[in-house]
């Protein structure tokens, strides 16, 4: 390459060098190279260092960081599954990689709930401190030439400002927080924990967790999801939808009295939750308690919204039926 010289390449080289210099200058000026800071509360509550030493490591083959990362968190949670099985379940040969929705779906298939966590270092480190290894998506390269990569964050050291990850072929790889955060930020800081039903993530306001459990229940059924809803309502007792969901799941598993209790909790927390009044009424009717059913349905009818019409109809049928 180097021996065939003429004028043109020189000019082109100069241009490349110029572009490079400009890029460098811009990057430096943008000042995006500072180490990200944690919130004061996180800083106070977290230990200076943590490492989930027991998280097993699987080295990735070829492009299969997705299946390898899944195997690590699933094995850590007690699911006995090997990388080869996961490759056929999550790897996309046409893309030579694995996409995010299927990463979450595959966790569900193995009876674990994928909870997406908030995209910030505070949430990430808090989950690790709570003993949950976190699957993170990174773009190791620049946005224009992406190198997408899944890894499992298992530790940190606040004094050294480092993260510890099972990544690629390297177990317990140490990365500076600055570099890690720069690569993580390019996936919009996408991350999730895979937990058995009954265990809740350490972070989040409950909204995402509610959806995560509902999606899990659709795939794995009421019986599998029951401990998750119990844990959710214990953790977020003020979230009416959690009690509502628990009521439905108890009803589906044959616990009618438990379901009534849960629906009553739901309307106690949020008296305007028409759908909970409606289900409470429907369930009382099913149990042959028309007076209680009528009382609950009247509350549902009084609330404008999507369930008003249905509640009115049921109440009408109930009166007609005596």
């Amino acid at each position, binding site marked *: 390459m180097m021996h065939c010289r003429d004028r043109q390449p020189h000019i082109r080289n100069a241009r490349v060098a110029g572009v490079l210099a400009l890029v460098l200058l811009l990057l430096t000026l943008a000042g995006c190279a500072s180490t990200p800071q944690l919130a004061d509360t996180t800083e106070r509550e977290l230990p200076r260092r943590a490492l989930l030493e027991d998280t097993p490591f699987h080295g990735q083959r070829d492009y299969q960081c997705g299946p390898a990362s899944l195997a690590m968190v699933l094995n850590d949670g007690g699911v006995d599954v090997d990388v080869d099985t996961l490759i056929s379940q999550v790897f996309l*040969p046409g893309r030579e990689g694995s996409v995010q929705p299927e990463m979450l779906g595959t966790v569900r298939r193995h009876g674990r709930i994928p909870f997406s966590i908030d995209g910030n270092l505070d949430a990430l480190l808090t989950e690790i401190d709570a003993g949950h290894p976190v699957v993170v998506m990174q773009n190791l390269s620049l946005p224009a030439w992406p190198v997408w990569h899944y890894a499992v964050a298992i530790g940190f050291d606040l004094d050294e400002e480092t993260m510890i990850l099972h990544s690629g072929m390297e177990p317990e790889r140490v990365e*500076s927080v600055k570099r890690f955060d720069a690569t993580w930020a390019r996936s919009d800081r996408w991350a999730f924990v895979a937990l058995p039903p009954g265990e809740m993530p350490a972070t989040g306001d409950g909204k995402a967790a509610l959806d995560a459990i509902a999606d899990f229940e659709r795939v794995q059924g009421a019986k599998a999801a029951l401990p998750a809803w119990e844990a959710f309502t214990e953790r977020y007792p003020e979230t009416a939808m959690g009690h509502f969901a628990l009521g439905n799941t108890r009803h589906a598993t044959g616990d009618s009295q438990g379901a009534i209790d849960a629906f009553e909790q739901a309307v106690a927390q949020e008296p305007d939750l028409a759908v909970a009044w409606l289900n409470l009424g429907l369930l009382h009717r099913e149990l042959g308690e028309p007076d209680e059913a009528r009382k609950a349905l009247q509350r549902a009818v009084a609330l404008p919204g999507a369930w008003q019409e249905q509640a009115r109809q049921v109440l009408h049928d109930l009166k007609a039926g005596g």
Partner: protein
Amino acid sequence: MMKKICRYLSPLLIAALVLGSLPVAAAPASPGSGLVTTQDALNVERTQGDRERIHEILARDDVQEQLVAQGVDPAEVEARVAALSDAEAAQMADQLEQLPAGASVVGALFAVFVILLVTDILGLTNVFPFTR
């Protein structure tokens, strides 16, 4: 001959179709038979329109086809799609090509190599292990 057969067959077919569709038609008319599901309640809470819901439901067939086209074993496809939430299925159907696929490969040109080398050294990227 054909006419005769048709004359007898059509009423039978019509009757069969009508009877077959009765449970579907009857389902929404008797709302008292079952409780409102959590999924339905959440969908209403998110003020999700019917159109979106239908789109999400149809999306699953789309995704199945796309996965087969991407080289996934057809025996696996159904279980893979079943594990997705409605929103995830819709996302897959709409933008599978644009979704980032975690893989970690660099198919970069020389100029890109140099830029990435520099950004690696600056600690902005993490492509080459030897820069750490």
